[in-house]
Structures are given as structure tokens and as C-alpha cells.
């Protein structure tokens, strides 16, 4: 099975770290290609960044789709351009946010999304509504660090994830924690062990969902919301 993972920003470092994690957990027969989007901003932390990252990302997806890829994963927790990507692609397209919100609601009564910056909480809440995942949402909480700071300071990142996750568990009733940024990748096992709750790394979860749906040859519906655009 051929799966394309797109990091819709232009950071090569972030792309490499996603690639490393996914290569460890992919099935031996999954042919994985992990790419970044050279024309996009270096990180995605605002609606402006999302807007600028989507057109070049869509070009990559259209090429991959015509090359016969089996599934495409948009590996950014903002799910930039997810609806447009599903419109232009006949191959399965999964966004790591939408996928992990729905998987989280299978695993516990309520989930909390951890996001880097407090200024993005409102945007995540909007996404939760967009993806029809509101009833299971306990809270959205921020680490108070930028994406690049989480990349640069792993020790502080881990400490903050631990503190914020514990607060979400005790104060908001969260039973599942979603690490809502690529910079938080790799801490799921430790946090899960220490707090005794379920912690999801969205990119890893989404790869496994893609492999599973790919096995069953299930794709998104092309009638209605994701119908092909008229003159793409």
C-alpha cells in the first residue's frame, strides 16, 4: 500500500521527525513517502498560515492522486485544506485532527486537545464543531509555547504536557489526551504511563487508520461534501 504523508509547512526538520516516527510504526508492506510543502510557511500557527499553505499542498495531492497513491495524510493538526483535498482526490484523504478526534471519542468519555499557544484555543474549538466532535470534547488547553519552542526544548515541552494533561484530567474530566501539534510527538507513551490515561499521537493514529481503511479499500464519499470541483 502506498501512503503519502504531507507536512503542509516547509520545515524539513519537522518533516524528518514525522518520518522517523511513522517509519517505526508502519507495516512492513506500507510504502511511505513523507514530504513537506516547500512553498508553504515554515510553521502553521494562524489562519493566515493555513491559507498560504493550502494551494501548494493541493498541487502535491493532485499529483499523488494521479500517480495512483492509495491514501494521503495531511500531517498538520489544523487540517488545512482538508475539505478541498478530499474534493480533488479520489484516493482516501485523512486529516490528523479530524481522525484523532473521532478515534478519541471511541476510547473514553471525553477528550482534551493540547495545543501550543493559547491564542489558538478558539480556533481549535471551531474545528471541534467543524468536525462534529463537540459532545465528546472536555477542553482545549494550551502549553504556552510556540511550535518552534516545542521543537527546540523537549524537556520543557514534556514537563508542560504533563502538567497541562493532568489539569485537563482533574479539572475537565478528560479521559483521552490528544497531542495537538507535531512538536509534541514522541511523548505519548511516557505521559500515558505516568498519568494512566489514553494519549494519542494524531499522526501515528492516522497512519494506522489509513492502513486499515486502505486494506478494506474504503474511501471518502464523492457525492455531496467532497464532490469533485467542476473545473479542477
Amino acid at each position, binding site marked *: 500500500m502506498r501512503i503519502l504523508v504531507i507536512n503542509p509547512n*516547509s520545515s524539513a526538520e519537522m518533516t524528518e521527525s514525522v518520518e522517523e516516527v511513522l517509519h517505526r510504526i508502519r507495516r512492513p508492506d506500507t510504502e511511505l513517502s513523507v514530504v513537506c510543502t*516547500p*512553498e*508553504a*510557511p*515554515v*510553521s502553521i*500557527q*494562524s*489562519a*493566515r*498560515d*493555513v*491559507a*498560504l499553505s*493550502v*494551494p501548494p499542498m*493541493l498541487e502535491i495531492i493532485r499529483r499523488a492522486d494521479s500517480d495512483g497513491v492509495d491514501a494521503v495524510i495531511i500531517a498538520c493538526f489544523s487540517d488545512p*485544506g482538508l*475539505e*478541498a483535498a*478530499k*474534493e*480533488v482526490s479520489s484516493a482516501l484523504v485523512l486529516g490528523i485532527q479530524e481522525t484523532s478526534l473521532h478515534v478519541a471519542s471511541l476510547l473514553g468519555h471525553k477528550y482534551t486537545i493540547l495545543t501550543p499557544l493559547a*491564542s*489558538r*484555543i*478558539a*480556533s481549535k474549538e*471551531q474545528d471541534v*464543531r*467543524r468536525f*462534529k466532535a463537540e459532545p465528546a470534547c472536555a477542553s482545549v488547553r494550551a502549553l504556552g509555547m*510556540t511550535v518552534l519552542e516545542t521543537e527546540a526544548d523537549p524537556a520543557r515541552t514534556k514537563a508542560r504536557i504533563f502538567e497541562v494533561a493532568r489539569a485537563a484530567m482533574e479539572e475537565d474530566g478528560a479521559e483521552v489526551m490528544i497531542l495537538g501539534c507535531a512538536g509534541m510527538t514522541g511523548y505519548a507513551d511516557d505521559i500515558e504511563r505516568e498519568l494512566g490515561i489514553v494519549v494519542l499521537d494524531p499522526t501515528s493514529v492516522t497512519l494506522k487508520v489509513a492502513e486499515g481503511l486502505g486494506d478494506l479499500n474504503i474511501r471518502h464519499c464523492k*457525492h*455531496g*461534501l467532497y*464532490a469533485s*470541483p*467542476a473545473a*479542477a
Partner: protein
Amino acid sequence: MKILVININTSEAITDKMRGVIEGVKRPDTHVDVICPTKGPDTIDSSFDEAYAVPPTLELVKQANQDGYDAILLGCFCDAGVEAAREISESPVIAMEEATFSVALTLGNKFGLLTEKRPRIAMKERHVRRAGLLQRLASIRALGLSTADLAAQPEETKRRGIELARRMVEEDGAEVIIMGCAAMAGYNDVLQAELGVPVLDPTVVSFKFAEMIADTGVSHSRVGLYHPPLPKTIR
């Protein structure tokens, strides 16, 4: 007062039509410019089209801030790029769909949304849900005619639009109707007289909303959802 209306598609014909409607309802002391980007799709029919319309629109929003407009109206009943536009704008940015929903809430319990194409119903519902307004939505119904039929059969379009709006009122509990389709523009008064409920034309309503916001001198909050983006390198 100086207001900029950005039709986010590149069609001069649609921009001219929009200018005509707005010139007809603006206050005498309002100066209005109605423009469209030079790059991007010439109509917006999909999320794909929206994706390509937004970056050129953002450039116009940036420029409008330098040019000292008191308010900026994004003239597309899909609100593409509104969050990004607000992030980069000091001037208030009014979104046509959101402004029309907001006004509808003040006129009745639930609103019904009339749209053109059936495939867009799901996306409209998603917009309503994202705005947190699902409880105030009666229904979304589509004319379901092709663009060619809409143009060729104005009487049939009108008849069907009235019929659908009537069913939204009688069967779905709509107390306000939003005319979310350009093909029905101009039939507001007919519809309002036929049905006896308020009928909102998004272009008109959102423009008057923009004048009101400019009058009050408030702009969008910059502490949360519309926080200015961090400075960064964009190649």
C-alpha cells in the same frame, strides 16, 4: 465613511453586479469601492476554489488597511478566508455569511437557508455548525437547477425558490429566510410578500452591517481567534 467590498472571485461581471446592488443601498455619505482580485478562480463553487481565492484576497485586505478603509466586506456567501483576513487586519472585516446569520438571529427563532446546488448543502451545514448556530437552523434547501437552467428559466427559478422557501417555513419551522443564492437575487420582495416572513439578501444585509460596524468604531477582538500571526518567513 469609506468601505471596501472584496468580491473574492475574479469575475468582473459578478463584481459589477455586486457594485450595482450596493450602490443602490449605501448611505449617501458612504464611499464604497467594490473590487475583486486579479488572480484566482472566477467563481467559487467548492472548497478547492476557496483555497485558491484566499491568498490573493488577503493581499487586498492588507492593502485596504494601508488605504485607511473603515470596514472591509468579504463579498462571498462562503466566508472563505475570514479568519485569516481578521488576523492581519486592524480594520473590521465583515463576512457575508456570518453577518447574515447574525442578523437572522435577531429576526426569528430559526432561519432557513436557500442555496443553489445540492452538493453544497453539506458544506453550508458545516458552516452553520462551525459558527455554533445549528440549534437556530431550520433547514437548508437547494434549488437543484444547473447554472444554465437558472439563467435560461428565470420564471421556473423564481417559482421553485418560492416553493422551497414556503416549505422551509411550513415544514421546517423557518421564521426567517436567507437567500443564499445569487440566482434568486431581486426576488426578495416577492418572496417576502408571498410568505410573510423576513427574507434576507446577504449582499444588502452584510453591507448595511458593515456600515453599522464602521459607525460604531469597533473592530474584531485580537486576543484569541483573530490574534495577529507571529512574524515568520514565508517563501
